[in-house]
């Protein structure tokens, strides 16, 4: 019998997204998809998190605060960007108030593409992120 090495705790950070990616990330926790089966859990504080799920095109207004929140997470965390917004700015790349991509501001381990990605894709991404945690 193999044991799961780690139960990843997830913190969700919204950097000014349209909510689409956020509700899909939350949908992962609810009965339709239920990532708690895999030992994952949504937590309310970055200090408890192993994986940080970041959504949105990085709003300039909250950039400093985003960085502070991410810094609070313990060492060894994995940052996962969800959605086209984090990758390139998506629909908002021409905006004067966003500063994508996310990788410019913090070390991102992986991106999950889609606008928004389906929960299946997010779960597949999290499973891969688990390997990065080892």
């Amino acid at each position, binding site marked *: 019998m193999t044991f799961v090495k780690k139960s990843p705790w997830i913190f969700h950070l919204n950097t000014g*997204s349209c909510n689409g990616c956020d509700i899909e990330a939350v949908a992962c926790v609810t009965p339709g998809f239920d990532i708690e089966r895999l030992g994952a859990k949504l937590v309310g504080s970055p200090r408890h998190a192993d994986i940080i799920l970041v959504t949105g095109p990085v709003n300039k207004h909250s950039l400093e605060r985003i960085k502070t929140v991410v810094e609070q997470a313990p060492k060894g965390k994995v940052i996962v960007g969800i959605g086209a917004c984090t990758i390139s700015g998506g629909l*908002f790349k021409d905006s004067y*108030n966003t500063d994508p991509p996310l990788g410019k501001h913090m070390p991102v381990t992986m991106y999950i593409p889609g606008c928004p990605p389906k929960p299946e894709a997010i779960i597949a991404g999290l499973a891969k992120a688990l390997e990065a945690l080892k």
Partner: protein
Amino acid sequence: MTDEKRDKKHETILPIGPFHPLLKEPEYFKVHVDGEKVTDFDFRLGFNHRGIEKIVESKTYSMATTLLGKVCGICNQAHSLAFSIGVEKINKITVPKRGKYIRTITFELERIQSHLLWLGVMAEAIGFETVFMHSWRERERTNYLFELMTGNRIAKEMSVVGGSKWDLDEKTGKKVLSELPNLVKFANNMERVFTKDKLVHKRLKEVGVLSKEEAKHFDVVGPVARASSLDFDIRKNSPYEVYKDFEFNVIVGDGADCLERTLVRIREIKESAEIIRQCIELLPGGEHRLKFFKSAEGKTTSRVEAPRGENAHFMVTGEMNPVRLKIRAPTYANIPPLKTMLLNQKIADVPPIIISIDPCFSCTDRIAVYKKGELVKRV
């Protein structure tokens, strides 16, 4: 409590946000408390501002409806529909009836989706995790239907200028009809829970009261207004699309508290299901979309009843792209009365009261003021 009487020495400021587990979006609420009691309330918006109104000026009309869907991921059709209706009005396009009906089906299904989502979030705010899980499970049904109809769970983009983007075949229509009783059953079940359960009443009854006069004074919209006995619904008061063809009731409640707002939304789920049923049964044949390339110049305002209330778009159109667009999202009207609702309440009641207006900040953050290239302030 008036400002003079306040004992500011004993006050503490309780910050909620910008990144807080209660809020799924970054916003900042400043709650002043004296002991357990809330004495003042303030908020800062702008953490979600993406400048959509500016970006849309460089898009063609077919691109614009897709972009406007991303104003808010929860009620994305509300914005693309309001925009489409406006542009159609300026160009005097007679949209095919079939297109209008299909748009209405997804629009009402979106209302069900949004209310179920909200019900879950509200239940979580009062510590009722079970209802959160149940209502999000039921919500998956609507997302499944959206996927069948449009190929997308969230970004539906059903309304385009000139009709609906996709047609609805008979099989999918039947599937939608067969799912409706499940949603109504769940709504009935929840109505029973929220009218009978004593614990829920303890948390929600007479919490965050907004009387009819105050509601009128603040001009609140949507379910918040209807829970304060204001009988106002754009679908009835100034019908757009094809709402004249259907029979449905506007749900009005007189409790004016958090509980009533919950019940109004639960009952609206049933009304929406009823509208969708009539829509599919009356669905006319023919074309569902007209081709649309160039617009006439003009300006107009269009309003739709989004899940959260009245959503108004003011637009000035050019030949290839909109020249100016102003979006007035429903949450914008519903935030100011929060102060009235929160005063003299307990700290523990702050989350359900904030959630009870169903705030959606990605809709609301619209304005940023620039002076000589420097950002001055965001509104």
